[in-house]
Every structure is written in structure tokens, then in C-alpha cells.
């Protein structure tokens, strides 16, 4: 029996192909589509087992989780960048702290036992985390930075955040997957009030969300986006 809200969405949801600002990356070109298909294949072959395991635990689909990973890291276990994003899911310590410490209040049920187990295995002190108090330099922050390059832990934390965001927006009405994408990219606190109610992806493209967040939507939900690729429609 499902524990969380059901995911129901349209894809592609925007009849637009993404071209980056320099014009060099055209998501409707055959070459880019092929590259993106290769990215999806790479993710399946390297971390496909982790994706299936954690998408099932957090009641997502493999296609959704793979699309997030492809958009975030193109399937590479990337080292910490200047935004403190780490690994396949480009999780940041702040977003992990937020989704773990506010899980119970937002979701209305405890973290799944598998999530507790992998947190305990990688960061035994996680049960002492408090809400939103850790910054770079803090010992808890450092432990999470050290743990996030672990592939399975990284995929698990990415899936956890996606489900947390889905539940956060489920109370808000409308199809939340597009809101989750934008929030995953630019942060929930600064996004939640901009995308209130039943808002379509096309309407979102007209909001002031920043180029990167809009590109995120297009990479996922655009005509040749990763969701079209993972669901085999491109």
C-alpha cells in the first residue's frame, strides 16, 4: 500500500526545446538527443540498482529519479562544487539537513527504515541533527560532505529530497512534479511562495525563477527532455 502521495504528471509538458544562452546546446538536435540517451544508459549501467532500490522505497519511478540525476550531474559522481552540490544527485548538505530534519513534520510519517539505516551507516550521529542549524565549518556539515560522494548514499539522499518536496507541495494543489524540479534546483524556501497553487510548466516559464531553474524544467519536461527519453518516447 502506498504511503505517500501519488505522482501524476504530463510529459513533455512544454512544447519547447532548450537552447542554452550561448546557443551551443540545442536539445532538439539529433546529436544532443543521442548524448542524452547515452547519459541515461550510463546511469542505468552504473547506478541502476541503487536507482531502482531508492525510487521504490520513496515511491518514485526509476524514470523520474534517472531524469533528475541526468539533469543534475549527467550521470557523473561529481566532486563538491562552488555551490556545495555533491555527486550524482548534486545534493547539498543544507538540502539534506532540511529534508531529513523536517521529514516527520512535512510528510506526516517517520523516515522509512531503509533511509534511517543508510543514514546511520554513513553518519552515525545523524539522529542528533537539529533543524537548519548547520553551516559550512560545522562538524555535522563536514561529516555530510564526506558521506555524500558515496554513490548509494547520494542516490538515497536525492530520492529522499524529491519525495520530501513532493509531499511539501502535495498540500498546495496542482501537479507538483514541476514545482519539485524548480525547488530541487533553487531551494524550497525561496521557491515555495513563487509557485503556489495549480500552476502549469508553461506558466512557470513566465515567472521570475532564474534562467537555470527554467532550463531545469526544459531539460526535464521540454519536448526532448530527459523524461521523454527515460520513458522511451524520444
Amino acid at each position, binding site marked *: 500500500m502506498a504511503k505517500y502521495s501519488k*505522482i501524476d*504528471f504530463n510529459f513533455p509538458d512544454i*512544447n519547447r526545446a532548450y*537552447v542554452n*544562452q550561448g546557443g551551443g546546446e540545442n536539445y*532538439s538536435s539529433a546529436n544532443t538527443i543521442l548524448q542524452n540517451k547515452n547519459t541515461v544508459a550510463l546511469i542505468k549501467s552504473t547506478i541502476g540498482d541503487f536507482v531502482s532500490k531508492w525510487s521504490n522505497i520513496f515511491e518514485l*519511478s526509476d524514470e*523520474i529519479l534517472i531524469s533528475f540525476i541526468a539533469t543534475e550531474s549527467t550521470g557523473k559522481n561529481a566532486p563538491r562544487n562552488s555551490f556545495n552540490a555533491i555527486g550524482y544527485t548534486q545534493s547539498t548538505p543544507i538540502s539534506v539537513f532540511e529534508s531529513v530534519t523536517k521529514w516527520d513534520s512535512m510528510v506526516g510519517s517517520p523516515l522509512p527504515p531503509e533511509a534511517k539505516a543508510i543514514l546511520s551507516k554513513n553518519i552515525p550521529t545523524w539522529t542528533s541533527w537539529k533543524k537548519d542549524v548547520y553551516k559550512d565549518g560545522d562538524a555535522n556539515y563536514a561529516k555530510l560532505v564526506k558521506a555524500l560522494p558515496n554513490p548509494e548514499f547520494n542516490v538515497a539522499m536525492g530520492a529522499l529530497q524529491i519525495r520530501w518536496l513532493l509531499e511539501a507541495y502535495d498540500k498546495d494543489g496542482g501537479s507538483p512534479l514541476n514545482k519539485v524540479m524548480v525547488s530541487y534546483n533553487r531551494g524550497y524556501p525561496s521557491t515555495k511562495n513563487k509557485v503556489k497553487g495549480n500552476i502549469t510548466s508553461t506558466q512557470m516559464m513566465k515567472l521570475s525563477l532564474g534562467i537555470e531553474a*527554467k532550463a531545469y524544467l526544459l531539460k526535464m519536461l521540454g519536448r526532448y527532455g530527459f523524461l521523454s527519453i527515460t520513458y522511451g518516447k524520444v
Partner: protein
Amino acid sequence: MDKNKKVFIIIGLIGVAIGGFVLTKYLTRNTIHQKFVTAHYVEYDTPPVVEPLTE
């Protein structure tokens, strides 16, 4: 009811069942049902807009 009538009724019911199944499959051909997810594939009849992304 004679035997022929019964046969026609049975054939008719089977036809309705098969027709209903085929029609349902056709109408939901772009809907993907998964364990926790329902995804609807949208077919666009115009080419996509392709231009640089602006704020």
C-alpha cells in the same frame, strides 16, 4: 429462447467486451501506469519552439 438467439447474444457480448477493451487501450495509449506513478505522454502537433532561453 432458441439456441441461435443465445449464440448471437453470446457472440454480441464477447464483441462488446473485446471492443471495449480495444477502445480503452486506444484511449489510454499515452498513459503509463506504474506502481506509484501515472505519466501522461502529450503529443504535440507543432514543432517545438527552439530559441535561447531568457528570463
